[in-house]
């Protein structure tokens, strides 16, 4: 295990390393991805924990990969700013880990991690340091390789620095939660939300109890208007510390899903059908995105759902991940990603087996 203090030190280490290399952050995502095949050298990135630059007036922040989401939030909060994401793996996760796993949570109205990254610095397996993007909020200079690194579970290169866009905090946020009797009643309510003028920043459907969680962030009066125009139900409205605590509870609910969590990617209008057919014991769905995280039991369940839908294994014990591929890639995706992996890491030494090289 090595703990580099800087990008340059990591570069030095990797240029002398000949074995397999495994980057490690806060280990909040170790149940995600295909099983690791081998490792000779673990790279602990937690020492890369500096916020290198923060210019509130530019709405940009530049952090090293080991900075935690919690620390980022605290720093931004001092200037009434925030990163509009709340990945399920929570405040102890590192920004490098969140980017590598493309982690996400209920906060989906403003996109996912990929949409907030404006630049990255990485170290490739041979020690070569390269950057992509830049430090400004809008940029089309050169290829946007940050998109490729995001979600590649550290198999193309090790992310060491990330530049992010951020936003001013909303003047007010409010959460409304309601429980519905049946799947049909929930689907009706969600349909009304989808076709209404409401613009929740989060819209989660939690099962099997059929709760709908809506979070609004806006001008206070715009929030009042939205609360007045909710679809008919017994809405329980919270704000302030209670609101934060409620979402923290939902994060707990997410952690309790399992033993295998399948992320089924559909459409907002097909979610009810997905849930009805799969009949999971518990689920949380990003209802406005058509993405359902559901509890399933084993690899066979994943395979069965895959006959009709795109499924990513979001979280599973090692034995299950040995049996079923994480991403379920199409032939075309598999071929392109494998070529990409080989271009960056011809000897397959970086996080071997965790991504495309462990798919088939």
């Amino acid at each position, binding site marked *: 295990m090595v703990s580099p203090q800087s990008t340059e030190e990591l570069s030095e280490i990797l240029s002398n390393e000949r074995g397999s290399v495994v980057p490690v952050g806060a280990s909040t995502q170790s149940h995600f991805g295909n099983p690791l095949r081998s490792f000779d050298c673990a790279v602990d990135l937690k020492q890369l924990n500096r916020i290198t630059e923060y*210019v509130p*007036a*530019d*709405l940009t922040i530049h952090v090293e990969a080991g900075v935690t989401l919690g620390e980022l939030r605290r720093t931004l909060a001092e200037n009434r700013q925030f990163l509009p994401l709340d990945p399920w793996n929570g405040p102890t996760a590192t920004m490098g880990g969140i980017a590598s796993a493309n982690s996400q949570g209920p906060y989906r109205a403003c*996109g*996912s991690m990929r*949409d907030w990254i404006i630049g990255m610095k990485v170290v490739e397996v*041979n*020690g*070569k340091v*390269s*950057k*992509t993007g*830049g*430090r*400004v*909020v*809008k*940029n*089309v*200079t*050169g*290829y*946007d*390789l940050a*998109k*490729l690194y*995001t*979600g590649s579970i550290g198999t193309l290169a090790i992310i060491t620095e990330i530049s992010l866009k951020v*936003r*001013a*905090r909303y003047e007010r946020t409010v959460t409304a939660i309601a429980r519905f009797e049946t799947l049909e009643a929930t689907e009706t309510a969600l*349909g009304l939300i*989808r*076709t209404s*003028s409401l613009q929740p920043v989060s819209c989660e459907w939690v099962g099997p109890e059929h709760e709908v969680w809506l979070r609004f962030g806006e*001008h*206070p*009066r*715009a929030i*009042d*208007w939205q609360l007045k125009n909710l679809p008919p139900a017994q809405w329980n409205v919270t704000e302030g510390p209670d609101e934060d605590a409620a979402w923290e509870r939902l994060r707990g609910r997410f952690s309790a899903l399992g033993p295998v969590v399948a992320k089924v*990617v559909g*459409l*907002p*209008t097909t979610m009810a059908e997905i849930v009805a057919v799969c009949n999971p014991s518990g689920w949380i769905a990003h209802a406005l*995105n*058509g993405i359902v995280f559901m509890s399933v039991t084993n690899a066979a369940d994943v395979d069965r759902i895959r006959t009709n839908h*795109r499924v*990513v294994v979001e979280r599973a014990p090692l034995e299950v991940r040995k049996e079923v591929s994480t991403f379920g890639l*199409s032939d*075309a*995706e598999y071929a*392109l*990603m494998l070529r*990409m992996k080989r*271009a*960056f890491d011809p*000897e397959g030494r970086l996080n071997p087996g965790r*991504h495309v090289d462990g798919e088939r």
Partner: protein
Amino acid sequence: MRPEIIKKLKAIVGDDCVVSDETELLVYECDALTLFRNKPDVVVFVTRTEQVAAVVRLANEHKIPFLPRGSGTGLSGGAMAIAGGIVIELQRMNKILAVDVENRIAVVQPGVVNLHISQAVAQHGLYYAPDPSSQSACSIGGNVAENAGGPHCLKYGMTTNHILAVEAVLTDGSVVRLGNAAGEAIGMDLLGAIVGSEGTFAIVTEITIRLLAKPQAVKTLIAAYHSIEECSQTVSDVIAAGILPAAFEFVDAKTIEAVEASVYRAGYPRDAAAVALIEVDGFRDGLEETGNQIVEICRRNKAYEIRVAKDEEERAKLWMGRKGAFGAMGRISPDMLVMDAVIPRTRLPEVLAEIDRISERYKLPVANVFHAGDGNLHPLILFDSRQADQVDRIFAMGEEILRVCVDVGGSLSGEHGIGCEKKEYMCMVFSDADLATMLQVKAVFNPEGLLNPDKIFPTRRSCTEIGKQTTTSTAEIEKRIETVLRGNAR
């Protein structure tokens, strides 16, 4: 182009869909960046994905360069056939294939004009957000290739944030589908890499886009200033107040002069040093207060005239001046070069002052009209292409302006792309190693380099040698970098 190739192309797309006449080809010798010109050998008009794939396979078989083209409105030479070869013209693939109102998505062909999408879905209260100034002419395929922006990407993001899935023809002629209607990247975000690859990774033949609900209300105003600094400070103060405007545009005195003398006359105060065009949108409730808050910030920064659009007609008029600004320049100058740099928005005043000094030194006027909210500058260098010495000067001047922007932490392009225009300047922001990694990715998608060659990457020998005017072909530099890479791998 050899007659047998022309014959084979005609067999793929039909006799009347192949243009190889020297005079007719003149139309395709450049895009909206008219300073760089080269005629393709042949242009084929395709109507179906299979035709694109067949043309690509043919090009591969005979090692002929090829590139896609939409409306030809690009400003960096992305659709210019720098190495000749085959232009695959996608304008006739212009159907909106599906609109899914409830899921707020649409499936379109690449030749569909950007604005036509919003017009087609307006009846459902929806629209497509990215709005480049050329939106009434530019194609969505071109937007995807360049990751196009526009005034409203300050709040709503660039093209890449609105593309959910594509069907694409790869350089070997195979057809793939990447992404999904949920916009959820599965595994590596290959789609995210293709968007903005300036037509060098793949040819996109079908695009699934995100539609947004039209905001309930919009408030648009202009504020006129006697000084550029006061206008720039307003940007920072609005952002610092936690307001996220839908757009924040900056129009300088020279631009006002041109606009007010043209058909795009918007009624901007003619004596202003700068005019800010600010728009906020969202829920009706609360928008009035936000608008008032902005007016207050403008006043505090000494805006001497503030005009709030009373209705849609007035709003359209205020925008007409901004959107027509590039076209209006013809009133005051025979030619212009549109630049597209980005700087951290807090550095606006000093950079604008420096651009002014550079303009004086080179004795070529510069008009500034740009997206101030995200620091995306568009210095317009005004010149006369009939005078050879001026043409020489604009390149040196453009390079100096870019250097100033890069030195404050900025970048070469915010929304127009690098293309052939700025490829020699890439070394200002990227090292040899950065470019080598990009070429490594390019080689995955485009191993033989036949798709849209000689774009984006510098042709000079290397970044460390920039300044020396040694020119080599892109193929040579790619080979050189490859050698370096192989050395590293060992």
